[in-house]
């Protein structure tokens, strides 16, 4: 069954239903010509099925109740006549119809995208005035009328929410966590140099004070001494069904949702080879290699016995599997296998399990369609609450409040079509305290990584020195690590430079401030003298 046939079937089908919500493609076609505001969409199955096709029909976006009633009336009155006239029309140009419907759909989507971009590029004041979701229908959960209910409680948080900006674009939101200018945000969206736009619209320069890769949080520092601070919730009482409002800078939340899943560990995605293994006396034997899998591409074969992973020896399947899974997708690992009594090495670039599985592939497509962009990092968090607020990746990093206006968490990722993730307040606060110590300064973190690479280098060099065999592999590895070290060093230098520059800027600003202050004092004194003189 081809998708094309399906389109045909659907239109036949829907034309038989006396239901205005599902009309024939002919009707859709004409309605698109009539009005640009009619959005059509491709209806997709939402189960997992190995066999069915994806696109199953073109449907008109649900009409409003009024339109609906009007159409119903019209439909009921002249259902038959209308049907016939449509049939006649269809006969004339049916051959073009499918293509046209597709084109129109594309066009409509493009328009939607363009409209969304326009919204994004608005000046912040415009954005605030008009409201981000101004296109939403009055009866939806993103309607302004509904969002406004949160107005009485979000003020204090909105005042302490900042936009992290780079190249005149907001790349993340952040929460001011101390009056002297510490701002919490999402790490993986950051790319320096950045500025922070405070709630009053003022842009201030910021530098990265600390990074916490485990939770993907970063602590920024901006100049300030009496900044408003987010009101953290003091106890953790969240449960399924709790309202959650994501705050930006206005008096209206950016979006509202509910807790859909309580806080849980979000596991990392693990690397995937595509082999079946079994324990034998000789070691761990490959019993099957999946077609087109990373393992096959790396040259592994059925019957190979895996003895080493990146030089580390393995004899037990229970130890080998977790080790391979500990590498993330995209990482290249070197396996040493026994084949016909010879040791053979195979470099395998680990993939995502999902990429090979058509079921997951579809889920991936559904998660990102319609311009629903996902955060780059959306897995691997020690604890996160899942909620259903519609967010964009750049909406993450900022505070989320409950109905009392208390900050119950920090949005950490847009994970999928139905899921946004939030780090609980208690965890976020703990990380803030850790980061404030300065031990997690980017320079320190980079340095630790460099030290680790250096240690690995040392180990490998020792191995090279001790081994009489061919060392090409090790040399290659050493070269790679050298390059990694070089890039990390550059990063480290950059970070230092940025920090120095930021400090210099602050220094300059305070000097200007001081000289202005003394100038004012001088003028005041002169004025006093003059006043005295006139007396």
């Amino acid at each position, binding site marked *: 069954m081809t998708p094309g046939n399906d389109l045909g079937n659907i239109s*036949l089908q829907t034309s038989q239903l006396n239901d205005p919500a599902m009309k024939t493609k002919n009707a859709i076609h004409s309605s698109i010509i009539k009005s640009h505001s009619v959005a059509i969409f491709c209806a997709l199955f939402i189960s997992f099925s190995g066999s069915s096709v994806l696109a199953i029909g073109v449907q008109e976006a649900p009409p409003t109740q009024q339109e609906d009633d009007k159409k119903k009336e019209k439909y009921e009155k002249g259902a038959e006549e209308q049907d016939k006239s449509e049939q006649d029309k269809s*006969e004339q140009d049916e051959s073009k119809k499918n293509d046209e419907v597709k084109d129109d759909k594309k066009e409509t989507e493009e328009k939607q995208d363009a409209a969304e971009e326009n919204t994004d590029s608005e000046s912040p004041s415009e954005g605030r005035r008009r409201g981000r979701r101004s296109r939403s229908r009055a009866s939806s959960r993103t309607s302004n009328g509904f969002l406004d209910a949160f107005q009485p409680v979000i003020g204090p948080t909105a005042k302490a929410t900042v936009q992290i900006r780079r190249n005149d674009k907001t790349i993340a939101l952040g929460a001011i966590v101390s009056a002297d200018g510490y701002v919490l945000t999402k790490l993986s969206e950051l790319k320096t140099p950045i500025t922070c736009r405070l709630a009053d619209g003022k842009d201030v320069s910021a530098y990265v004070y600390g990074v916490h890769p485990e939770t993907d949080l970063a602590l920024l520092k901006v100049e300030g001494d009496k900044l408003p601070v987010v009101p953290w919730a003091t106890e953790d009482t969240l449960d399924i*069904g709790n309202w959650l409002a994501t705050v930006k800078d206005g008096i209206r939340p950016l979006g509202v949702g509910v807790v859909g899943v309580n806080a849980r560990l979000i596991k990392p995605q693990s690397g995937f080879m595509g082999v079946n293994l079994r324990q034998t006396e000789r070691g761990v034997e490959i019993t099957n290699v999946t077609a087109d899998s990373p393992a096959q591409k790396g040259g592994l074969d059925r019957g190979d016995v895996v003895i080493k992973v990146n030089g580390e020896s393995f004899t037990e399947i229970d130890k080998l599997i977790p080790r391979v899974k500990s590498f993330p997708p995209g990482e290249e690992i070197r396996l040493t296998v026994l084949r016909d009594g010879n040791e053979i090495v195979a470099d395998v670039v680990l993939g995502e399990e999902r990429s090979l599985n058509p079921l997951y592939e579809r889920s991936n497509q559904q998660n990102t369609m319609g311009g629903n962009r996902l955060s780059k990092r959306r897995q691997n968090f020690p604890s996160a609450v899942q909620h259903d607020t519609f967010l964009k990746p750049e909406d993450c990093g900022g505070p989320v409040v409950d109905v009392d206006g208390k900050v119950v968490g920090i949005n950490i990722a847009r994970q999928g079509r139905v899921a946004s993730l939030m780090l609980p307040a208690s965890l976020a606060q703990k990380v803030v305290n850790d980061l404030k110590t300065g031990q997690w300064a980017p320079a320190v973190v980079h340095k630790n990584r460099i030290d680790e690479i250096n240690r690995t280098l040392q180990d490998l060099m020792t191995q090279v020195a001790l081994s009489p065999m061919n060392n090409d592999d090790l040399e290659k590895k050493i070269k790679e690590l050298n390059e990694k070290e070089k890039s990390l060093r550059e990063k480290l230098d950059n970070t230092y430079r940025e920090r120095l520059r930021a400090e210099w800027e602050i220094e300059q600003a305070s000097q200007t401030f001081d000289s202005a202050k003394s100038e004012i004092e001088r003028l005041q004194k002169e004025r006093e003298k003059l006043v005295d003189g006139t007396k």
Partner: protein
Amino acid sequence: MTRCLPSRIDQPGVRTLTYERSGNPRILAALCGSTALFLFILLGNVAFAQTDADISEEEAAATADKSVQVEFDFFDGAAPISIAQLKQMEKHFKELSGDVKDATVSVQVGSNQGTGVIVTRDGYVMTAAHVIGGADRPAIIKLPDGTELEAKTLGLNRQFDSGLLKIKAKDKYPYLSPGVSSELKTGQWVMAIGHPGGWEEDRGLVYRIGRILNNGDSAISTDCSLVGGDSGGPLVDMNGDVVGIHSRIGMRVSDNVHVPVDVFSEQWDDLSKGRDWGRGIGGVNPANEPWIGMSMEGDTLVIESVVEKGPADKAGIKKGDRVMEIDGVRLRSQRRFRTLFQRAEPKEKLKIKIKRDDKEMDIEVTVGSRKDADDPR
């Protein structure tokens, strides 16, 4: 009594009571200073199954004098306008999520995985037609606690995407009652439950809140975001009654379509008897795809060949005949013939006018099914 609801009643029609308890909307709206429909419910000893017509003004005033708390009615789609109202809803969501949890199950049929909801004590499970894919197939139902139960697929209407299963083991199962989807109003609050992305042991069910955007006879749309794996899961109203079954999604996150539960209620007999019918969203059952057993030359309406003992052959259609009309509709193209023929149901009698040797004649064809063509007897 905090939920101000009549206790759950199992017959669908009775649910109408829930919606009859509104006051005079105009007056109430004026009270709110808004044109939106806000309905106030007085807590206390008022019987909420009664309509307001049953409560005299004096009675209402007396109740108000006792000064009971004023609540707003989000059951009918009112949007909250204060923190107190948000809290009232939140409290209700929490209770509701607990109420609906046990009856929402994972459904696995062959390689298809979706969600379902138990709707009777003896284990009938509503799901989507495209999740079960056919009648009389073995299925696995997984309860939220991980217990796996054997089940069998019953009927499915592929036109609406409604499907039914039955758990095999005789037992008393937690269940949710079907509501009345035709009475859903635009803006009404609903909760969607399911296993998005499939069953995940360390995550479990995922709850989402949304509102009715449109309520049609064959499809309900909401802004409860859905994704693969949710199919077949329940959309419940604020009473905790099943009003829809998740079916499909559109491009935007706010385009989510559910099968109205009335479709199940109205076709319950056919579904429970294992009937597989309809064409469309849930695919086509070959047994329901019309088949005539003849081919035409190129783009013409001239018969090129007929399948021996096929419907056309049995009716007397021969090679070289030209098809003129189908059920009284004059034909100008082969495409039109196909379009019209596709609407026929197997076993239906179709009148076809043909031209043979310059003579027109009417022939009655009993439509066959694709299944017969694939599996000739």
